[in-house]
């Protein structure tokens, strides 16, 4: 099933179609929304437009449940941000909140009904040690015990190994860059930090500018290979962009910013798929296109990637596309002389763990 034809996508674009959908179409929509992590979002849109009383009762109950879950998470995120602010404000450095927590923290419409699994922050690389120490004092600990994994993050990645709070169990990713240090594309996180905006009521927590939120969302989507919530992340971008479309010269300013941060390629692919799937066109957003051979191939792979969240959107090609995108995300992350030993290590470690498990059983 083509993504642009999904009722789910249509409902995200124009929530007013919801009351006209028949029960059989809702049956599929609710399942797809649940799998994509978009149930709360659809619920939030229905509530915002006052559509809830016009929806079939079991359908509204399903959406309402998704929304209840997301609302609870948003409450927890606000609480967590206050505690993070408390833990880090003594350092005198800017701390940027990224992605979902940034939308929630700044009250952006993209936050409505959105689910998330962790909080992402960005700090200047020079302060990374201080930040990690302050977080540990406040109860966040690194959960990766394998020394290899620790080294992988610390030496090559753009973030510390993931941290978890010992009491609350909340997950935190501490970034010092938007992309890995070893990656093919380099960007300048200091520019994102310079242009960031304070979060009202908090001392050191900030959010990236509207443009940078869009660029980071696109970069994360195209580089991290988390295709299970690819469609959700694309719908984030749809919300982030549509809330800015009225601004004079928005498209050209966004493209200019992407050039400055060297993030044109991820923005290009994001815009193509926003147009193909969500029918969104942005005037003036001229971004340098990749070569004419690679472009159709990438578009095909990405379309499969976006559809991988639910069986009804998968095709026999999906597994191949997922694998290709997985390889691509690693290819972008590391040069071959680092990547090949890394993948070999991971493969043997997995095999070793499997053998040990079988012998124990």
């Amino acid at each position, binding site marked *: 099933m083509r993504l642009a034809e999904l009722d789910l996508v249509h409902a995200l674009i124009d929530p007013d179609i919801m009351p006209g959908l*028949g*029960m*059989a179409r*809702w*049956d599929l929509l*609710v*399942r797809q929304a*649940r*799998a994509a992590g978009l149930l709360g979002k659809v619920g939030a849109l229905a509530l915002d437009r006052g559509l809830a009383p016009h929806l*079939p009762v*079991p*359908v509204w*109950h*399903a959406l*309402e*449940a998704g929304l*209840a*879950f997301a*609302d*609870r998470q948003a*409450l927890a995120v606000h609480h967590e941000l206050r505690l993070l602010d408390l833990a880090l404000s003594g350092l005198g450095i800017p701390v940027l909140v990224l992605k979902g927590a940034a939308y929630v923290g700044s009250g952006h419409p993209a936050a409505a009904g959105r689910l998330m699994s962790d909080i992402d922050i960005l700090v200047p690389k020079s302060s990374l040690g201080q930040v990690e120490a302050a977080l540990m004092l406040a109860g966040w600990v690194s959960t990766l015990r394998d020394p290899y994994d620790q080294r992988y993050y610390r030496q090559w990645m753009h973030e510390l190994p993931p941290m978890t709070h010992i009491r609350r169990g909340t997950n935190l990713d501490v970034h010092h860059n938007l992309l890995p240090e070893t990656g093919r594309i380099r960007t300048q996180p200091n520019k994102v930090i310079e242009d960031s905006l304070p979060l009202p009521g908090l001392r050191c927590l900030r959010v990236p500018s509207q443009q940078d939120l869009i660029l980071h969302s696109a970069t994360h989507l195209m580089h991290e290979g988390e295709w299970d919530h690819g469609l959700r992340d694309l719908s984030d971008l749809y919300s982030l962009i549509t809330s800015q479309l009225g601004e004079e010269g928005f498209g050209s300013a966004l493209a200019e910013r992407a050039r400055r941060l060297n993030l044109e390629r991820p923005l290009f692919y994001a815009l193509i798929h926003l147009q193909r799937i969500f029918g969104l066109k942005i005037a003036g957003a001229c971004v340098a296109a990749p070569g004419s051979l690679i472009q159709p191939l990438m578009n095909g792979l990405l379309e499969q990637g976006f559809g991988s969240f*639910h*069986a009804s959107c998968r095709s026999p090609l999906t597994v191949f596309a997922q694998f290709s995108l997985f390889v691509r995300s690693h290819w972008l992350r590391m040069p071959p002389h680092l990547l090949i030993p890394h993948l070999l290590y991971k493969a043997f470690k997995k095999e070793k763990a499997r053998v040990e498990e079988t012998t124990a059983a």
Partner: protein
Amino acid sequence: MRLAELSSAELESHLAQGLGLVTGPFRFLIQSRLPRVAHGLATLYCDFETGDFDFHDFHVRVDKPFGLRSWFRPQINFWLDDFTPFIPLPADHDMAQLEWGMNWCIAGHAHHYLMLHAAVLERNGQAVILPGDPGAGKSTLTAALTLSGWRLLSDEITIIDRDDGLIVPLVRPVSLKNASIDIIRAFAPTAYIGDTAKDTHKGTVSHLRPPIDSVLAMNRKARARHIVFPRWRAGADPVSKPHAKSDAFLHVANHAFNYSLLGSLGFDLTARLLDDCDCQNFEYSRLPDALAFFEKLVT
């Protein structure tokens, strides 16, 4: 249409495609190619409504996972739509896995309701909630009351509608574990108890078919009047004592599936429930004593 009206061949072919089943406010689409699941549904759910529905709250499936394993030590797995939340289990736990899986679907998703971990039954228009710590004898008591003229609303998940604060019946087979299986067989020799699944993580598990009256009344909501904390102790004479409402509130909230998720709504619904109910502890060792106590409670 009632499920019993399907021939076993019809049931199996429906199940292969997906069988619509109504349980309380939820419509499941159940898919399975396992004969034991067909048999389990035919015997435990015979009085339930089935049909071709357009919308289902949950699409579930219990089947063999794909792979070589099915040849030498067969296993089964549970799917919600195309998601597998559990690790595979031995093949003869299939019906138990379907029941657990359906409970998991409800407890993890149905946040229109406040969901308490408690059994609930009704008699004379008064619903009695039985929150049970493990080992308190909640399922045995629920089964015995169910077989003594009480209307079963739920044996595991008490669901409270956020719109009106009433208890919505979620009638399903009553899950019996270990010694309680034989106790209920002895208590009601004519009651239908399904096949047993041995060595599960809960021990030996079997299910009691709910009485047809409870099944047919599954659309009738009830108002809670009593919360009774039962406790079975060998040789004990029946004793009931008031249970402080403040403590009952905390117990109910701590054992709810989604109390904190619902935020202030969870608090309001629980407070309203406690306002409506008398709360007691009840200790017993013999089922007839317990039945007499509960009978008196609602007259």
